[in-house]
């Protein structure tokens, strides 16, 4: 068996995908730590206090301490809950993130998989996150968790519609669902990005992204002060750690898609490249954190009203106008 022949027999896309998955795992892991630290620091400074400060210089080692603590805890499951579903839920929350990252172009040649339906892939796997919330709530054998899960499903379903319609408007304009093509269609300067042409779609997308990731004023499913901890009440240790990590990973995914669709992807003034992509992604992440510590949590009926009565009509109107403009010009 010739080693060279074996290596040549492996399709290059598979090799590329495996390499990309390994790098993405590292990226998500490192970002998880960085975002946890940043969130606490931003929260602290908005509240005029230091945030983590003692563990390491300026609290830089705090995420490592937290990770070690979570890993070292006992894995406890409720006695009468569904054991399989209970442990499946955090894994199902965490794994789709890696698939969602594959079609995203970090740089001109930095993508995991060239999928001409990249946008559809991402949106499809975002739905799996909702499923994991359902599983978590049901398998916990806890009425608070179940209520939290029910609210989460209602919220996600309500906000997926305007998200899709807003994204659809951009696809109409660009004529493709391929993220690489969408990025290539934008220029380097901010007025050449899609946000200049579709500002309403950008705002709607941002609101829906925050709602989909259960962040900021839309964190009813977690509702720390109301439903004990919502759907992850019964989780401790690594189960909770995975949900936590999945939330931050999902944040990065929606921010990356926002950057690709609306903010020019890896293109920027002076020099295109992955650095611009990362700067923009972090800008959106910091904005999401900023929003979290500004706005109070919306009530459930207010949440659904916002989606069904405001965002959906607005996004459909936006799509209609886009379609007319694209077809007539």
């Amino acid at each position, binding site marked *: 068996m010739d080693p060279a022949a074996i290596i040549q027999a492996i399709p290059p896309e598979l090799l590329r995908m495996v390499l990309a998955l390994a790098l993405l795992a590292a990226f998500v892991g490192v970002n998880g730590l960085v975002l946890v630290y940043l969130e606490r620091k931003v929260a602290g400074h908005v509240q005029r206090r230091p945030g983590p400060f003692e563990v390491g210089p300026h609290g830089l080692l705090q995420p490592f301490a937290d990770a070690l603590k979570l890993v070292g805890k006992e894995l406890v499951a409720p006695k009468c809950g569904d054991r399989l579903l209970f442990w499946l839920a955090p894994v199902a929350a965490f794994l789709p993130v890696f698939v969602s990252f594959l079609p995203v172009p970090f740089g001109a040649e930095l993508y995991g998989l060239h999928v001409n339906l990249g946008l559809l892939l991402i949106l499809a796997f975002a739905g799996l996150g909702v499923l994991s919330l359902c599983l978590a709530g049901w398998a916990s054998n806890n009425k608070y968790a179940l209520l939290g899960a029910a609210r989460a499903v209602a919220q996600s379903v309500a906000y997926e519609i305007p998200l899709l319609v807003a994204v659809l408007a951009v696809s109409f304009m660009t004529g493709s669902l391929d993220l690489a093509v969408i990025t290539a269609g934008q220029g380097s300067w901010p007025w050449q990005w899609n946000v200049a042409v579709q500002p309403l779609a950008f705002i709607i997308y941002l609101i829906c992204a925050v709602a989909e990731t259960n962040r900021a004023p839309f964190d009813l499913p977690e509702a720390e002060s109301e439903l004990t901890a919502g759907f992850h009440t019964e989780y401790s240790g690594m189960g909770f750690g995975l949900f936590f990590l999945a939330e931050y990973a999902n944040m990065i995914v929606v921010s990356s898609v926002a950057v690709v669709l609306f903010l020019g992807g890896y293109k920027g003034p002076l020099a295109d490249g992955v650095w611009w992509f990362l700067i923009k992604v972090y800008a959106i992440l910091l904005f999401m954190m900023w*929003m979290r510590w500004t706005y109070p949590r919306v009530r459930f009926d207010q949440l659904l009203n916002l989606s069904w009565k405001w965002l959906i009509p607005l996004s459909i109107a936006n799509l209609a106008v886009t379609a007319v403009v694209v077809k007539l010009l």
Partner: protein
Amino acid sequence: MSVIKELRRTASGLWSLVVGLGVTGKNFLKPQVTVHYPRQIVPNLDSYRGHIDLVPLDDDPQTPRCICCMTCINVCPSQCLSLTVDRDRPAKGRAEPAGEAGDLPTPKDGGNMLVVEPKRMEPPKKAGPKRPATFIKDYNLCSLCGLCVQNCPVDSLMFSRDIKLAGYRREDFVLDLLGRMRARELPLVPALGSGVASIRGAQGASAPAEGQGVAAPAPRKAKAADRGGPDASGPDASGGAGAGQPDASKDQGS
């Protein structure tokens, strides 16, 4: 009309969102309010409520103002105070102990009186209020409600500003308030030739025990304003960082 009203309401609502972001954004850039203890110390502890401490008399800093009325002991909801009365002091309403010094025979007849009775030459012992011999506070039980401080008729109790109180055992927090006061307060300097020393001697002021051993820069004169509480004049209050400072600084207690 209501549509326009609705739209205006929405517009002002959206603007309020932006204003909110501005408020948190500005706060993000403002300096922290947190005091990084122990690298920094809160500069003004005037309103800090630590455990209870005794307040000394203005003219005799080794004696507390306490008159043993037991109000604080009775009003304390946690029953954490206890005291014993000093039986060696002459108190009002108590018979003077018999057999004082200088029991010389009094001449009954009006003969030659060359021997002067020392008893009559001595200034009479002033009877005063009861004073405590011991005053114990069990800080393990105290809830810092302040009822004792509030209800003391002679203002003999105050809150200390001891922010560094820490110990390893329950017993560390059973506080001898009288001992603490005496270690904290310095004895008065007897002014030369004013006879003050003898009055104090007559009143049987207890010997300042631990206080004497402390190396003091200078014993202070009694001041009415000096009610045992540090008025936190700048450098003294913030000098609490040095744990080895002598008690004579009488700032944050021992």
